[in-house]
């Protein structure tokens, strides 16, 4: 039996389509040419063709799969602009009278060898991108076919490797799986397979191509990495059973995609998603989320030496607000410090960064910066449904000061005649135990709470979540954390406001019923896990969940809580 690296979960059973195209680029027949001018012309024509092909493919990809995947193709286009790449090819043609395709292959092989010799797995994978672009250039030079013809029926692709642009051109209605001899979990093909839900196994080794023939039946298990060629009847039956089970789940999630997150007795909650960069908008909207429960504004501030000005921030927030239309988008104001450094702010090194100068504490100490962000957020609120959320608040005075600055920003915009949402909702993160204990006081002054379990656990249990030595102490199932969550939700309901939860716990199906029973109104986690959470919500009654939560609150240890939830999940 063959085995590879499992890179995209799921079981697939289908006939093999084996692609045997070259692994190395070295396929140039004649290495030298007498006509340098002609070869230079061929090269530049091929580069221009490649640029057009990639632009077109990028456009298609953007439409069908979202801009994040299209970014791969932007990188390929950037290679065409790189003086060390095409420039080097031209130099080889001129100085050594090489044929154009030989020049491409020589330069490509150099870069492939360089990348592959690097220790870092991520950099090794970049060899794929070079291979992809170079193959395209050579095919263009030789006038070869750049489109592979795929069968009009289900197949599992088996190849030495699959380049990113090849992955993007696969017929999604027919491809059931991807298996490669080379490559690994961080290759573009792997990332794409995962996001498209196509089972994939990579790095199965050089013998793969010898052992698998086109047309033979193949089972791939993208969860374990197992590959079974021409299975016997029993094995086939076992895997068909497993695949049917998976398919049932998948259909279930798909079927409830458009349905509300509502319990069997009609209690409705909201399922949102967390988002890191605006480029994710399209994919998230397509996945059926009700909105964004946490959009971290930090992305705009990281990886740069200057601060984004009001217009730049406005453009980014507006893009997201407009993309989601009437769906809510909760934007958290700047939450840096702790483990996130910001070069432009020149923050001091601290002994205890997580207890130090971070998040709202910085915003309030630098109101001139905070006001820029607030003005940008308010201006963007005219283009969609934005909500503002303040992080790391421990003292009521901080909340009041933040709200005062927000009012100041509003007054400025009014005076300037700039439109914004006058009724924009303002909420705060509940991530400091002290604030949770005083939730009743805070609830009178905000429109909503969002519990940040990652930090809340850290502060409640005094456990540094980055420290591996004490990782086992870190759990959101700790009874003290659960009590705080319960108190926050209760206080919010007494005051007539709602509470959400953004953090890993919101996407953990084991915690769903418990959170529902505690009265949580909104769940926000990674979009990929939310269908499971929805399924949990739709298959329980709020009464049953309340009973469960009531009992959990009487338990005394993490183990007891986890065990009880597992027992009840069955």
């Amino acid at each position: 039996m063959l085995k590879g690296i499992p890179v995209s979960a799921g079981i697939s059973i289908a006939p093999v389509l084996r692609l045997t195209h070259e692994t190395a680029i070295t396929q140039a027949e004649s290495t030298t040419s007498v006509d340098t001018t002609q070869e230079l012309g061929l090269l530049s024509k091929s580069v221009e063709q490649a640029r057009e092909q990639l632009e077109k493919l990028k456009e298609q990809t953007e439409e069908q799969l979202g801009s994040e995947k299209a970014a791969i193709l932007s990188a390929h286009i950037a290679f065409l602009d790189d003086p060390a790449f095409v420039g080097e090819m031209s130099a080889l043609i001129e100085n050594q009278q090489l044929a154009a395709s030989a020049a491409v292959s020589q330069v490509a092989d150099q870069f492939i060898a360089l990348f592959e010799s690097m220790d870092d797995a991520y950099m090794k994978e970049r060899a794929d991108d070079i291979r992809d672009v170079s193959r395209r250039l050579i095919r263009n030079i030789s006038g070869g076919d750049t489109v592979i013809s795929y069968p009009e029926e289900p197949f599992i692709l088996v190849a030495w490797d699959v380049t990113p642009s090849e992955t993007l051109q696969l017929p999604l209605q027919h491809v059931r799986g991807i298996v490669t001899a080379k490559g690994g979990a961080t290759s573009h093909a792997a990332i794409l397979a995962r996001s498209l839900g196509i089972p994939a196994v990579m790095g199965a080794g050089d013998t793969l191509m010898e052992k698998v023939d086109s047309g033979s039946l193949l089972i791939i298990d993208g969860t374990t990495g197992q590959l079974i060629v021409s299975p016997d009847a029993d094995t086939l039956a076992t895997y068909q059973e497993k695949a049917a089970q998976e398919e049932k789940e998948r259909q279930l999630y798909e079927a409830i995609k458009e349905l509300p997150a509502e319990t069997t007795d009609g209690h409705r909650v909201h399922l949102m998603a967390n988002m890191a960069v605006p480029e994710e908008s399209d994919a998230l909207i397509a996945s059926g989320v009700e909105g964004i429960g946490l959009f971290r504004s930090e992305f705009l501030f990281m990886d740069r030496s200057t601060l984004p000005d009001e217009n730049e921030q406005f453009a980014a927030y507006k893009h997201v607000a407009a993309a989601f239309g009437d769906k809510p988008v909760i934007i958290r104001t700047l939450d840096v410090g702790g483990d996130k450094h910001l070069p432009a702010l020149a923050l001091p090194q601290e002994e205890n960064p997580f207890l130090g100068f971070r998040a709202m504490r910085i915003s309030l100490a630098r109101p001139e910066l905070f006001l820029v962000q607030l003005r940008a957020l308010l201006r963007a609120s005219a283009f969609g449904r934005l909500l503002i959320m303040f992080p790391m608040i421990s003292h009521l005075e901080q909340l009041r000061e933040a709200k005062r600055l927000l009012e100041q920003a509003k007054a400025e915009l009014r005076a300037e005649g700039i439109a914004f949402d006058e009724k924009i909702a303002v909420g705060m993160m509940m991530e400091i135990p002290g604030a949770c204990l005083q939730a009743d006081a805070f609830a009178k002054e905000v429109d909503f709470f969002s519990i940040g379990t990652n930090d809340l656990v850290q502060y409640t249990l005094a456990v540094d979540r980055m420290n591996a030595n004490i990782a086992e102490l870190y759990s959101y199932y700790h009874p003290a954390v659960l009590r705080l969550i319960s108190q926050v939700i209760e206080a919010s309901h007494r005051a007539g406001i709602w509470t959400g939860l953004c953090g890993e716990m919101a996407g953990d199906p084991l915690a769903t019923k418990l959170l529902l029973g505690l009265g949580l109104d909104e769940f926000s986690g990674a979009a990929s896990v939310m269908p499971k959470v929805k399924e949990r919500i739709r298959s329980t009654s709020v009464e049953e969940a309340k009973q469960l939560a009531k009992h959990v609150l009487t338990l005394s240890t993490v183990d007891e809580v986890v065990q009880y939830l597992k027992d009840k999940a069955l």
Partner: protein
Amino acid sequence: MVQFEVTVNVEGGLHARPAALLVNCSSQSQSKITLSKGTKHADGKSILGIMTLGVSQGDTLTVQIDGADEQNVATAIQQLLEQSS
């Protein structure tokens, strides 16, 4: 010509994204920019060149800039490489 040494503080080293930022910065300049790590050299305007230098966080780079706007570019590049995220 300006030449200086800088310890790269970019988290995870010069991967595609920071390399692209660097190229954006260099490409706006008329100056010739060379980055050297040990005996390896790369054109500061080439994303592939920079990536293949294999620069990890904590590595020391020598940067050579030659041209009319060398002083400004030097400051920008130094800041980019020294920032930690």
